[in-house]
């Protein structure tokens, strides 16, 4: 099966293409910059906390934590339309629900962190346009 450029990049631990798309956020906020910036601020605070919770859950083999935070992160990343993360989070959530394959979860978590860190950099950069 052919992989998209983004999927190939993830395997190489690099992402070249932007992962965020602010069209949805802009539409929901009517393009109001102060509101968009406020939501970006919450995103920048919340995403690292969610990533840490999943990493802690993996360290403790706490599948319930992995499942719950993988699920809630789908909502978080959907706001910035980071669609590349949805199948990754869905797989982590499913594995968490089945309480199985911690090695696969760890591998997915690496991809998750890589993409989220890029998303954070993109949003931090974008936020400068909203001040």
């Amino acid at each position, binding site marked *: 099966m052919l992989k998209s450029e983004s999927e190939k990049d993830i395997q190489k631990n690099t992402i070249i293409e932007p992962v965020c798309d602010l069209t*949805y956020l802009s539409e929901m*906020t*009517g393009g109001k910059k102060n*509101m968009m910036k406020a*939501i970006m601020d919450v995103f920048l605070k919340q995403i690292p906390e969610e990533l840490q919770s999943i990493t802690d859950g993996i360290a403790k083999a706490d599948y319930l934590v992995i499942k719950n935070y993988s699920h*809630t992160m789908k909502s*978080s990343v*959907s706001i910035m339309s980071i669609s590349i993360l949805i199948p990754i989070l*869905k797989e982590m959530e499913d594995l968490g629900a089945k309480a199985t394959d911690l090695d696969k979860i760890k591998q997915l978590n690496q991809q998750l962190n890589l993409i989220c860190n890029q998303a954070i950099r993109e949003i931090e950069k974008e936020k400068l346009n909203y001040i």
Partner: protein
Amino acid sequence: MNHQTAISIFIVEDNFLYTYMLESALKEHGNFKVTAFATGEECLELLDNNPDIIILDHLLGKGMNGLATFKIIHSRKPKIPIIILSCQTDAQVAIDTMKAGAYDYIQKQNYSIGELEKTLLKAIRGN
């Protein structure tokens, strides 16, 4: 129902970022008074305030899950329309909840604030 006053909406969603975005968008877009809850239990405590409509995440991470919350709300307040929120990958669960009596379901990221407002108003008017 006189909606010269603000329309009262309860949002039950455990993701603070999503709630914040939705609450901000609704308040900006229309005459909505939004009360947000992170758990089903918190919502049930204030259910007798009789909101005009409830937006409920079908999968709540903490405490009672969305489906259980839905069933209790629907049995106690059958006239209050409930809109189910789901992720892109959870459509079937949301559809099942709708079959159990929810007014409608919306997939996160797949709706505009204008579409949401139309759905809310239609549900409140009872058609």
